[in-house]
């Protein structure tokens, strides 16, 4: 795929890896190396994943009985609100882009860093500042508006720390925007010679399209939260019906961001899966061009469907019709991607390492999540199912069954590259299978009880739903175990794991042409690209290299 440019590394001392270049805490906190910034993000979002996870563990525990166990209703309401806020903005939105995107984007396009390295560091500090507001909210007692902050409840009736919570989300939104600006400029301006747009790996396309959405959608969220803050804090009427304001205006502004937001959460996941499946099936991705256009179509149409969150909000039947129609249209490119991933397996040489297990799990769970989206796009179905557990099950299938599975797939796939260590394949496979089973046990019952009338955000609930809630909570326990396991075996791998070769999976892609972990300077000489990605076929004459590749990758210890 590339010239043998990287054998520049002579027999003298190889450069230190990016991990070794500078050992002090200060060197990490003032780094502009995209690889280190990715690690900073990874630590931060993992921390918040477990905070958000603990919140919902308490919720699922409380839901074992219809009248609750140990929480007041106010406490319960604050816990589910915190779970939503933290998982959406402090885990899911940054998850793949800020960690894997940051680490891999320059490597995959043959650049030495992102376009604006200092802006990259600033984006992490913005995340930390937003996180500080959120921790403050949490410690002070939380917020109970749900992650959706609907007016007039949030502006005039909520007790709890609405302003602090909104401030946290406002600030972390600018972290998103900064990352997006950086990625778009990087993709446009820093591709290596010969790396044309249609030679880019799909992961890069995913980072590019998600960045467009982040840059254009997030500011609207920022403004809608700012308006909630000024109404609550200064009494300025914006959504106040008693002075002519319209609470539905808030919903339009909020969902104009929050619908594209869910695509911010899924596009990167699709990018990861498009890297993993070809590698472990040993086949090029089926229909590369369609996959690119599908990503673009999803990103564009995602801006046109927000009203499907408002079918019962009081908007006109015509609006309902239009948004319903567009919601069906946006499902088509996603369906194409599912077919293409499946077709990639055809005539492959498939192996089932952990990344592949997670990726295949993604395809199945995303399919179910997406299909249930069609239910919700149908207005009469949605009128019954909205604000019920059916919706909760739907979005968890796509965001957890989907995005988190893909995050895990990517984490395992690139772990050797990022850390220079191999993880325990047996434990990882066990965790992957446990995740899949635990996930289904948690969320399948929620479809059933949702359709049968169990509303969401309910502390107390009618007795007839108890069996389903218990099933779901037990499933959640299994899922929790499956999510804690990687902490253990990844931690173990950092200390005792076998040192990883440059390309343990024999994958294509420029990132595998550097050592594991890569040196601080990605490329001594920018490579020249001659071909497209995923050249896995026997006819591609790619050496099916083992550990001892003929060309010594850049930065590898001799």
């Amino acid at each position, binding site marked *: 795929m590339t010239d043998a440019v990287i054998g520049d590394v002579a027999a003298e001392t190889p450069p230190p890896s990016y991990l070794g270049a500078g050992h002090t805490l200060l060197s990490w906190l003032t780094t502009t190396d995209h690889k280190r910034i990715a690690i900073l993000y990874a630590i931060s979002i993992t921390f918040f994943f477990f905070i958000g996870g603990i919140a919902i563990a308490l919720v699922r525990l409380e839901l074992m009985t219809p009248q609750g166990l140990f929480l007041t209703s106010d406490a319960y309401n604050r816990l589910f609100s915190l779970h939503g806020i933290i998982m959406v903005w402090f885990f899911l939105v940054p998850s793949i882009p800020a960690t894997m995107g940051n680490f891999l984007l320059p490597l995959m396009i043959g650049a030495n860093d992102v376009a604006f390295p200092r802006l990259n560091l600033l984006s992490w500090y913005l995340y930390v500042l937003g996180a500080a507001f959120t921790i403050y909210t949490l410690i002070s007692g939380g917020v109970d508006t749900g992650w959706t902050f609907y007016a007039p409840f949030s502006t005039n009736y909520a007790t709890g720390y609405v302003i602090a919570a909104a401030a946290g989300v406002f600030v972390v939104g600018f972290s998103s925007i900064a990352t997006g600006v950086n990625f778009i400029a990087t993709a446009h301006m820093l591709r290596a010679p010969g790396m044309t747009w249609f030679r880019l790996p799909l992961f890069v396309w995913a980072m590019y399209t998600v960045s467009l959405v982040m840059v254009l959608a997030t500011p609207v969220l920022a403004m809608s939260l700012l308006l909630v803050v000024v109404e609550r804090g200064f009494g300025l009427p914006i959504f106040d019906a008693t002075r002519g304001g319209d609470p539905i205006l808030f919903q339009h502004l909020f969902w104009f961001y929050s619908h594209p937001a869910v695509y911010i959460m899924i596009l990167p996941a699709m990018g990861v899966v498009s890297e993993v499946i070809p590698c472990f099936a040993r086949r090029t991705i089926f229909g590369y061009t369609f996959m690119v256009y599908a990503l673009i179509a999803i990103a564009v149409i995602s801006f046109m469907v927000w009203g499907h969150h408002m079918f019962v909000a009081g908007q006109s039947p015509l609006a309902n019709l239009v948004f319903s129609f567009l919601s069906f249209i946006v*499902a088509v490119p996603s369906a194409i991607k599912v077919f293409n991933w499946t077709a990639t397996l055809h005539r492959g040489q498939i192996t089932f390492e952990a990344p592949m297990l997670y990726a295949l799990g993604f395809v199945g769970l995303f399919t179910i999540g997406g299909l249930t989206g069609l239910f919700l796009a149908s207005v009469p179905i949605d009128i019954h199912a909205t604000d019920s557990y059916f919706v909760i099950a739907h979005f968890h299938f796509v965001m957890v069954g989907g995005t988190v599975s893909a995050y895990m797939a990517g984490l395992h796939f690139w772990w050797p590259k990022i850390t220079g260590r191999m993880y325990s394949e047996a434990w990882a496979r066990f965790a992957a299978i446990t995740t899949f089973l635990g996930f289904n046990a948690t969320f399948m019952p929620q479809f059933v009880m949702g359709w049968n009338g169990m509303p969401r955000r*309910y502390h107390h609930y009618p007795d007839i739903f108890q069996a389903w809630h218990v099933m779901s909570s037990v499933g959640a326990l299994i899922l929790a175990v499956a999510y804690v396991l990687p902490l253990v075996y990844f931690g173990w791998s950092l200390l005792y794991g076998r040192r990883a070769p440059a390309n343990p999976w024999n994958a294509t892609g420029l990132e595998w042409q550097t050592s594991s972990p890569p040196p601080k300077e990605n490329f001594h000489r920018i490579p020249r690209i001659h071909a497209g990605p995923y050249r896995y076929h026997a006819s591609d004459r790619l050496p099916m290299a083992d550990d001892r590749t003929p060309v010594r990758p850049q930065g590898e210890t001799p």
Partner: protein
Amino acid sequence: MTTDSFMAVGSDYAGKVDETFWILVIISGLITALVASLIAGFSLRYRRGSNAWRGPFPERVSRDVEIGWTVATLFLFLFIFWWAASNQLAALDVPGNALEIHVVAKQWMWRVQQPGGAREINEIHVPEKVPVRLVMTSEDVIHDLFLPTMRLKQDVLPGRYTFLWFTAIKTGVFHLTCAEYCGTDHSVMAGRLVVMTASDYARWSSAQPEADNLARQGEALFYSLGCSGCHAPTSSVHAPDLHGVYGRAVHLSDGRVVTADEAYLRDSILLPLKDIVVGFAPIMPSFQGVVTEDELVKLIAYLKSLSTSPTLPSTAIEGGRAGTGVKQ
């Protein structure tokens, strides 16, 4: 509380929704089975080292397949959209003879006003086989009235009326609850939808303590609040005559023509400067804070009665249809 009180098929519309649901379940099941079996099948057949044949795949076939399943998916999704949309559109027309019940939501209860004057808390009694239209508003935050057996819900908003209509086809006691998060006791803001036979309902309704109907109570308010002071044709103040105003087209001073529905009447009382009728000065005071939601319901019921009742209420204005008031 039984499953039936949640999932009984409470109306013909509910039956149609269920039909759509199960069709979608079948289609989704088939697609999921297809994808799952392809993944499982390919994983098995093309696992590394198996002796399946793995020649190259022709580019042209590849593209045809792509286009094929894209088009097929598009058509399937458009079909589902059309199916669902036609159900939605068919359900939009409210029958003219609907029984109107007013619902006021507040943290954390439902106050219901029957047209016959009866008042209920967290319960709505309705007759079966008669179209019922709920006219709803909130006193504080956004709530949502959810009637699972009707497969219906509608957000209930402050400062506005929203509507829900259904025709119950079986008697019984069914679930009613709030489905828009509204604070501490959101999860216990539940109640009952009681569907009775028409004769039982009539009997129940007349047995309720507040037997005086809403319109009569509204008429009393019309006088006690001073509305008649300006709006009676004998008044020296030039104000629109409200005879027959409900449902009429109203010409406004900025050139627009609007229909005088509940929302218009409500706004006229609370925000009188919002829409000025052409030919009248903007001098009506606002009754915001003076009149409660319940009183608004009664006033509007009274104004509606000025259009529909064949004989005018006892102290109402005689004649005066031509010339004064709302111009056509």
